[in-house]
């Protein structure tokens, strides 16, 4: 749980920070943040999710590099939607020099491309599942 009332600059403290899942595995980076207006006052904005993956990064970079990433990520992603993968902010455990999560990355939308790479390429190679010596 985080200390309530804590103040932080989101760009510096959250953006581009490493996401680490409950097993200590690296789960991508905070490429962008989703801000949602509150029901009773649309002017008030809350952070409701972390956006991660090339799709989110592409939107943020814009320009040539952004479009390049956008094309790459769209081809890699196997789902129909074009919105970037979301990590609901509720699973965030701690914000330090990295962002620790309460859940394992397999449960996150952002892990789709990782699973695709695992199934289609790596799992087919002998010894993919062997523990590191």
């Amino acid at each position, binding site marked *: *749980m*985080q*200390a*309530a*009332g*804590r*103040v*932080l*600059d*989101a*760009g*510096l*403290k959250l*953006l581009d920070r490493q996401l680490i899942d409950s097993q200590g595995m690296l789960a991508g980076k905070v490429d*962008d*943040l*989703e*801000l*949602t*207006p*509150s029901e009773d006052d649309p*002017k*008030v*904005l*809350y*952070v*409701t999710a972390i*956006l991660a993956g090339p799709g*989110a990064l592409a*939107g*943020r970079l814009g320009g040539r590099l952004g479009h390049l990433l956008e094309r790459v990520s769209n081809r890699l992603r196997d789902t129909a939607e074009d919105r970037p993968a979301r990590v*609901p*902010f*509720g*699973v*965030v*455990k701690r914000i330090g020099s990295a962002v620790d999560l*309460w859940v394992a990355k397999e449960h996150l939308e952002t892990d789709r491309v990782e699973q695709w790479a695992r199934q289609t390429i790596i799992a087919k190679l002998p010894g993919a599942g062997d523990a590191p010596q």
Partner: protein
Amino acid sequence: MRLSELLGCEVVDERGRSAGKVHDVRMVQDGPPIGQFGASLRLIGLIVGRHAIGARFGYDRGAMKGPWLLRQLAGSGSRSGRYVDWELVRSVDPAGARIEIAGSVDDLSPPEPMP
């Protein structure tokens, strides 16, 4: 709305004078509870000013030891930033990358440094 849509927006006061671009967004953790995180982060203000290499390099925090030369080069940029309280914001036009605020640019003070 995405955070990246706010970053880089030009902040303009009532008379159309610019306070510079948004290069960071300040949040406080006092919103409604969200999952296991606790109170959610609420947007309370914008850090505005010329491109602040100093902040990105880390020189606006006390924790940076040196080196001297880089501190001088980067240091000057960050102090010129200004803080815009979210209450002052009249309209946000992400497509046009433009944010209009009430009052005047001169009334804005630099942001207090974060711990």
